[in-house]
């Protein structure tokens, strides 16, 4: 089937089998390999991208359902100020080692920062429960997000 969707602000028309999920579409057809695949059944969070303005599992949206959607992958946040702050904070706090979970972590982290400006550590940890990291033990990731939250509160 032929699918037209917006990816990082540009319309793309791709041919795919209906069973192809969005993550494979992004990686295989559009060569946006910043989106990573872990479990492919919605548990690990590695493939999380923004769909129609909200984080979603790209492994659980099959091609047909992508028609008309607006998708933003990690590559699409290059100019985003919140994501820039998160990237710096992730680096400063050693919030990644291998980096496999990082694109999904950043998409969810940005959602936490924007949706829950008053989140404390317990809430950040709860919100991160759907993104697995096997390197860091999460401490650096939680500190990085809390750091951006604190900086934004101080600047407000």
């Amino acid at each position, binding site marked *: *089937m032929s699918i037209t969707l917006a990816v990082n602000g540009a319309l793309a028309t791709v041919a795919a089998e209906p069973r192809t999920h969005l993550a494979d579409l992004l990686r295989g057809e559009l060569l946006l390999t910043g989106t990573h695949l872990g479990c492919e059944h*919605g548990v690990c969070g590695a493939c999380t991208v923004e769909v129609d303005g909200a984080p979603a599992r790209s492994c659980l949206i099959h091609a047909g359902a992508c028609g008309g959607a607006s998708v933003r992958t990690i590559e699409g946040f290059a100019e985003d100020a919140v994501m820039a702050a998160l990237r710096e904070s992730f680096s400063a706090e050693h919030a990644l080692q291998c980096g496999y979970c990082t694109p999904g972590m950043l998409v969810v982290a940005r959602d936490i920062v924007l949706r829950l400006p008053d989140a404390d550590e317990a809430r950040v940890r709860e919100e991160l429960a759907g993104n697995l990291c096997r390197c860091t033990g999460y401490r650096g990731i939680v500190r990085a997000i809390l750091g951006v939250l604190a900086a934004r509160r101080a600047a407000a």
Partner: protein
Amino acid sequence: MKPAPFDYARPADWPAALALLAAGARPVAGGQSLGPMLNLRLALPERVADLRHLPDYAGVSMQGETVRIGAGTTHAAIEDGVVPGRLGEILAGVARRIAYRPVRNRGTIGGSFAHADPAADWVAVLPALPGHAIALGPQGERRIPLAEFVLGVFETALRSDELLRALELPALPAATRFGHWKFCRKPGEFSKATACVLALPGAVPTAVLAALDAAPLVIADASALLADPTAEAARITATLALDDPWRAALARTALRHAAEAVR
């Protein structure tokens, strides 16, 4: 894993959706349950019918004192307060603990209820509430009491030619008390035991015990549970003859905590 091949259809209106259903298509809403089942090849439909673009599928409207929740309303919308009043508060508290936010952004209340996974959150809560599931079939709409909707594991009162269109619940008085407790070893994973208790002012309290690998247990009169949570939770759980002692302990604990949490 990757799904086996299937065809995709996107009905634009309800008659088209019912026609696809009659032709054997598997209905899908947010796809947060069916999606993993497709990827793991636990589900092998020849065709899926994507209900998300049906008119009025998502969204909440007030009809007098009745709240009508479109079956396609997402958990995230409910978490964020799309349902008004005390009912909305209760549903928002439940929605917030369903899976993870990226899943809640796609998953829907109707899709989850109609899927009827025994560990699902709405399966464990909606049967305690007054109101009806609105099924749509070739003959029109049919109202199914929420307490009678889930019949078993992945089994509902929907007929094979019906779709779940909406949920209709009465607006709840501000003094309505509610307790809810579930056990997950990790936030967001499937519950191992869930219970809730609903106490409407001046009415007999109701309760539900779920995540039992069976239909939820609907307790139509939970007065005794509220009066003595420990003893009554033990008595009710003993009647279930659960095989594993740890499952029985969790079920008992869930009922007790839900009753103690009523406020």
